[in-house]
């Protein structure tokens, strides 16, 4: 039972760490890094779901009867793309924030906003 789920627990650990970075850190870029880790952990979860013991990659070939589940793979392909798109856009906003505030630290930005 416990061993049967160890994979998921690694996922949860990664997810928690990523989530922690997002919330606890004030550096905008680091937040995005945390977000990436967070999302990636979800990807790992999906792929883990897809794994079948003794199965092989889902590319049809003679002599193989057991394949891994292709559906989560497809979903995660899409999700990875979505993730990178989000990161890219986030970075673009950070670059603009840096130009406008000359800082990429949450604290300083909020200070400046409170002043104005």
């Amino acid at each position: 039972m416990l061993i049967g789920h160890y994979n998921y627990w690694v996922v949860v650990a990664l997810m928690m760490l990523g989530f922690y970075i997002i919330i606890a850190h004030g550096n905008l870029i680091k937040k995005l890094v945390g977000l990436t880790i967070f999302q990636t952990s979800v990807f790992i979860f999906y792929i883990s779901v897809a794994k079948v013991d003794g199965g092989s990659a889902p590319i049809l070939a003679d002599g193989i009867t057991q394949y891994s589940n292709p559906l989560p793979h497809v979903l995660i392909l899409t999700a990875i793309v979505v993730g990178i798109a989000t990161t890219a856009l986030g970075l673009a906003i950070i670059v603009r924030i840096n130009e406008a505030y000359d800082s990429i630290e949450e604290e300083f930005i909020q200070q400046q906003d409170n002043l104005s």
Partner: protein
Amino acid sequence: MAHLPILQVILPLLAAPLCLFLKRPKLVWLFACVVTALTFTISVLLVQQVTSTGVISYELGGWAPPWGIEYRIDALNAFVIMVVSGLSAVVLLAARTSLENELSSNRQTYFYALYLLSLTGMLGILATGDAFNVFVFLEISSLSAYALIAMGKDRRALWASYQYLIMGTIGATFILIGIGLMYQMTGTLNMQDLAERLPEVAQTRTVFVSFAFVVVGVCLKLALFPLHLWLPNAYAYAPSIVTAMLAATSTKVAIYLLIRFTFTVFGLSFSFTTLPLNILFLVLGLLGVFVASTSAIYQQNVKHIFAYSSIAQVGYMIVGISVGTAAGLSASLMHIFNHALMKGALFLALAGVMYRLGNVQLKSFQGLGRQMPLTMAAIVVGGLSLIGVPLTVGFISKWYLVVAMIENGWWPVAILILFGSLLAIIYLWRVVEVAYFRAPNKDNESVKEAPLGILIPTWILVLANVYFGVDTRINVQIAQMAAENLFGVAP
């Protein structure tokens, strides 16, 4: 006719890249207006089709569900699709004039393209019958919304947009986790199929957790109290048109998702009997109403006032859902429609103020009642509707909401809802008092009425507020039909 479900999504979708070929902002705007108008027409046809023939299922790629992706239109989403596409079309009309002062012309083409994409994303979420497809289109609408918000003139727009991006992505990822867990337990992604297969495993902890994640994720997008922190600034500093569009549509889509997941996918008995969701929603909804309304009273920026008011209005919708009866749900659905109309009108009117004054600080409103009579009148009518004064749409939904509460024996809640309206009076009154009962200050003595380009769309919505407050056939009947369908009562 058979292709209507997909057409309404791909029409704005394909129009977005075409915008880049047109280049000239004015041309792009015209094109986008035509496209949104067509989309709206399609949505009206869809509503007609659904009300006359029942649920429409459309198999994308020719693969039958659950193997392929299915578009599934019933009264519920046809109704919301109509609201979203209609409001987007009207708001877009005002875009050209409003952007003149708020966005440099070389960015306007991208603005319109992103606007269309945002619409696409929302319509995609609404139409689809596939859980993962929801996620994909959610990201389309969110990414375009982040970019649109960041285009605001004020540098705080960037910061607001970033915060929204972080919160929104967390929300989307939560939804993704939830969908993953569901898939793990059932092996399917199709909502209809999920609804059939979930009860078998409903008692497992995994399903419980997946439900929790989906709900929290959606509530983040929904700005349900206490997950609303991203919203006020995003609304306040985005370009006025974007604010109007987001306020009128995007929270509605999130509400729809919540209804879809709780009622269709997980099912009524799971959502409301296995879990204490009704109590949770009720408490959070009411808290949202009161905390947000009270915050609204203390704001100095009028966009902030209405942004907080939006959070409060979301609270009402959640309260309606929490009752767990067809009457409550239909009241919430009506409020989706009505709130879209009133917030659309209010924020468009603010766009007009923004155009003339360059800001929407409350103190700048001095004497505007005389300087910009039509714009201010629009705010007054929109505000009356927000309060829930009879003969406006706001009254209809409040009425049904209170009736639903009383039917269920929740008298105190009914009183609290009415009390919430009082708070709305207070924050609106502050605006009215400054605009009408103070003399104009030096800066805005020469301010003129908002340009027609903004005024006409604003008044279209204002009149709609009044019209649908009097002729309630459309909004009430469809909402009731949709709610009854979800509860399995024959329409």
